[in-house]
């Protein structure tokens, strides 16, 4: 049986405060402690600074530990050049499993006339690559939240897109559930959904196969993120789906 697959991790400098557990060795130690076999890393540098450099950093880390890390590459469609070429390069890298987009941090909306975004998403859809669209970076009340209306607009404009909605808290669940119902290729990542019973509600209303385990480590404590699923009202078979099987089905051999 495979270990847990964590679809949301970060690497890099957290600009708001020093991370106590952010080094690669510490991340690996945490993964071992909580039985996490694979962690999909996104780059913090790519969010806050240079997306290409940030992706290279996490790719190097993944190459050093190909049995532990995968990468969700970040593309900022506003800055930089050769986005499509870069996307192709990422898609050919077997350690990269998807694309992460941060409209708030990169100052765009899906409705903006950014020429490159539709082309990027078209290529992603063609390859059936998932797009990670986090509402927030971590469950901290001071950080900005991508409005649900914008998420709905994304799904309406790109109905064939496979989307992993992350950073959803209890206040947003009731708005996200209708999107999950109407968009069969949308998934919910668990790292910010802490309210007791909320994961069970998602499973009941849209299906357990739509939940993907995420911790948000090392920003968030993976011990808490594992505990909430381990003690939720799920059967062992359902827990196995959330912790790993759903991700394996979604990412295939890449994960």
């Amino acid at each position, binding site marked *: 049986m495979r270990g847990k697959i964590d679809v949301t991790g970060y690497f890099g400098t957290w600009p708001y405060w020093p991370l106590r557990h952010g080094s690669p060795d510490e991340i690996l130690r945490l993964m071992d402690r909580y039985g996490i076999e694979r962690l999909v890393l996104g780059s913090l540098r790519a969010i806050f600074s240079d997306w290409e450099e940030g992706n290279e950093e996490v790719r190097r880390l993944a190459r050093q530990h190909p049995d532990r890390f995968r990468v969700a590459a970040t593309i900022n469609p506003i800055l930089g050049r050769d986005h499509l070429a870069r996307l192709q390069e990422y898609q050919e890298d077997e350690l990269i499993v998807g694309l992460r987009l941060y409209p708030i941090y990169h100052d765009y909306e899906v409705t903006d006339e950014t020429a490159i975004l539709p082309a990027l998403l078209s290529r992603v859809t063609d390859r059936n690559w998932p797009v990670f669209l986090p509402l927030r970076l971590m469950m901290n009340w001071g950080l900005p939240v991508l409005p649900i209306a914008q998420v709905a607009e994304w799904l309406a404009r790109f109905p064939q897109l496979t989307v992993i909605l992350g950073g959803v808290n*209890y206040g947003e669940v009731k708005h996200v559930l209708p999107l999950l119902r109407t968009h069969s290729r949308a998934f919910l990542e668990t790292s910010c959904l802490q309210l007791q*019973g909320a994961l069970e509600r998602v499973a009941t209303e849209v299906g357990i196969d739509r939940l993907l385990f995420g911790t948000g480590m090392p920003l968030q404590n993976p011990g808490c993120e594992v505990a909430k699923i381990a003690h939720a009202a799920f059967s062992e078979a359902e827990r196995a789906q959330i912790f790993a099987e759903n991700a394996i089905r979604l990412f295939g051999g890449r994960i």
Partner: protein
Amino acid sequence: MIIDAHVHLGPMPLFRVEGRVEDLLRAADRSGIEKLFCTHATALFYDFREGNERLYRIMRQYPDRILGYCTISSSRYGTRAVEEVERCAQDYGMRGLKIYSFSIPGTREPFLSVDDEWMYPVIEKAAEYGMVILAHSNAEEIAHLASLFPHAILVMAHMGNTAHARGDWHRAIAVARRFPNIYLDTSTSSTDFDCVETAVALLGAERLLFGSDWPLFHHEFALARIRETSLSPEEQALILGGNLRRLLGL
């Protein structure tokens, strides 16, 4: 002995939870939590007198398990609020006071603030009785209260991890460093990895109180926030119950 310093009983429709005491005790037993310091949601969100009375009835039913916070949802009731604190302390044996800052919807500006002239007599009365004052507040509010009431035991609910406090736990730790009568409650929906460890490093474990915010969050989820850290067993024991035992003389 594990004591949960932040528990709610009663229905909270906004969160779709019923908060039944039987469910609470079953959950607490599973997680090895012996005592539960509770508010009643009816007092918090509707009618404080009725809610406090409901909580008292539950306390009488489970005297070894349930400790009570007298809740004052709004200071605007003037002397009635002060009398309620007195009644809860004297007649009901409640050891704590719960007060709550409500934000103006869509903003983080206080609508009803715990740091308000109207609230001061309520706090003064609770301090007279040595009650633990659990304040849903931001750092500025709790710091000002601490300066006005240095003899009061003030607990900043959620240690800054709320929308009202802008998620700013660093500021919560900073004001707790400045005022020794401020304690921090660990309950929150945030699983920020560094929060608890940083607080212990800067304040010492003596200033943190374990809370779950049950029924909103599972006890095991809240416990992991303390246990799944680099804190020593001694530090964890203080946070998980030792500190509250000391404050309440249990």
